[in-house]
């Protein structure tokens, strides 16, 4: 892909964030998903939840504003919005497992058109980094994934079936990549949006399974 077409990292996050509806409770994963909190979504208010029990956190704390005992899931010092509440870890995951999270946004290594995705273990690794991903993936009402459309060496990350160990099966609602927004549709991905300057043919060439317009 050319560096000048498609979405950059913030634009990928913006596209997902524009799916958020007023009043949703949203959990943002570490990395790319964090960028969703920068998106202007107008008058819609979203409540951000973090695995460590923070309900209603706000922007990253500015220099000198940090509370060293207040972090988001990525360990960054955040601020709190009015109306925030803190609970312990079992209650925090009760919120997740109990189905109160309207949307979770995560990064991934692979997303399959059957709705599976993989984000906790790389090929050949002995250990893995699951964190809260399996709970969120299994239990959030919507699972949004943000990832580059291909690996650095050009292999597709949107595939027919995941080669890596999956995080959950059949759960992905939408995946945003640098090429567009895609919906798992069984044996193919369906295009919801193409990024500016990107053609369907380019998407198909970069995807490991059929792509429906």
């Amino acid at each position, binding site marked *: 892909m050319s560096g000048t077409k498609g979405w950059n990292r913030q634009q990928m996050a913006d596209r997902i964030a524009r799916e958020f509806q007023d009043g949703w409770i949203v959990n943002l994963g*570490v*990395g790319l998903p964090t960028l969703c909190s920068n998106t202007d979504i107008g008058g819609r208010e979203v409540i951000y939840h*973090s*695995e*460590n*029990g*923070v309900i209603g956190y706000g922007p990253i704390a500015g220099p000198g504003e*940090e*509370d*060293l*005992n*207040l*972090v988001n899931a990525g*360990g*960054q*010092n955040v601020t*709190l919005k009015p109306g925030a509440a*803190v*609970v*312990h*870890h*079992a209650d*925090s*995951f009760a919120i*997740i*497992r109990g189905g109160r999270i309207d949307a979770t946004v995560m990064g991934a290594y692979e997303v399959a058109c059957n709705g599976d995705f993989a984000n906790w*273990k*790389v090929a050949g*690794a*002995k*250990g*893995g*980094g*699951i*964190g*809260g*991903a*399996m*709970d969120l993936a*299994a*239990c959030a009402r919507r699972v949004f994934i943000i990832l580059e459309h291909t690996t650095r060496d050009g292999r597709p990350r949107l595939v027919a079936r995941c080669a890596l*160990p*999956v*995080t*959950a*099966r059949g759960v992905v609602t939408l995946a945003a990549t640098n090429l567009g927004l895609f919906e798992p549709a069984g044996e193919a991905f369906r295009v919801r949006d193409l990024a500016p300057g990107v053609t369907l043919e380019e998407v198909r060439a970069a995807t490991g399974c059929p792509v429906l317009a």
Partner: protein
Amino acid sequence: MSQRNKVVASFAEAVRDIPDGATIGFGGFAMPGTPFNLIRALAEQGARNLTLVANTTGGAQQPRMPDIALLVENGQVRKVICAFTAATRASDVLPFTKYYEAGEVEAELVPQGTLAERMRAAGAGIPAFYTPTAVGTELAEGRETRVINGREYLLEYALPLDYAFVRAHRADAFGNLRYWRSQRNFNPVMAMAARVTIAEVDEEILPVGAMDPDDVHTPGIFVHRLVKVPPPPEGLWPQKRQERNR
């Protein structure tokens, strides 16, 4: 209750009786709520063959702090039970990884919510429960599942602890605890799951009766020893995170 004072003079004294082979839970999620001072004391105490329960295997924070990676490097650890047993970025290498790949330490990888719930279950006298988490994944392979109301669930067992090391913001001498912001995290759940809970506390420990009963986060019946954290540099406190160059 008023006579029962659980304050201990030093971290060394608080961890002195921990035997080889103990299972110990460590509160903390990133810096907040991590009992750095108790961990350092346990490294000095030297108990071995330990099973450690924590969110991560430690060693990823900058600046580096005494977390369970220190105990692993110190040769005190037989097994860890964590939600992360590898770095989330393949390019990072954790201190733990070397020992794990060499087979010197075992690891049980548990989804974070399941980890919290298994300890909560232990504290609540629930020996096992069903969860949708990890169904259909490598973690569920060969394990018992059950379909309830048309959905498949995985059976998980309680995870009891011999000791919990927690960090709190405020305490009274009976051991009633309050946490500050995300310092809370795993700490209340580990205190429930443990036979013996040892708390390091930010503020001066209050006399019994100074905390409103409605404001208690962890009731004192779950807490057995309290140590006030001294000011730095003697005491260890959360540090401002340094972003690593990548």
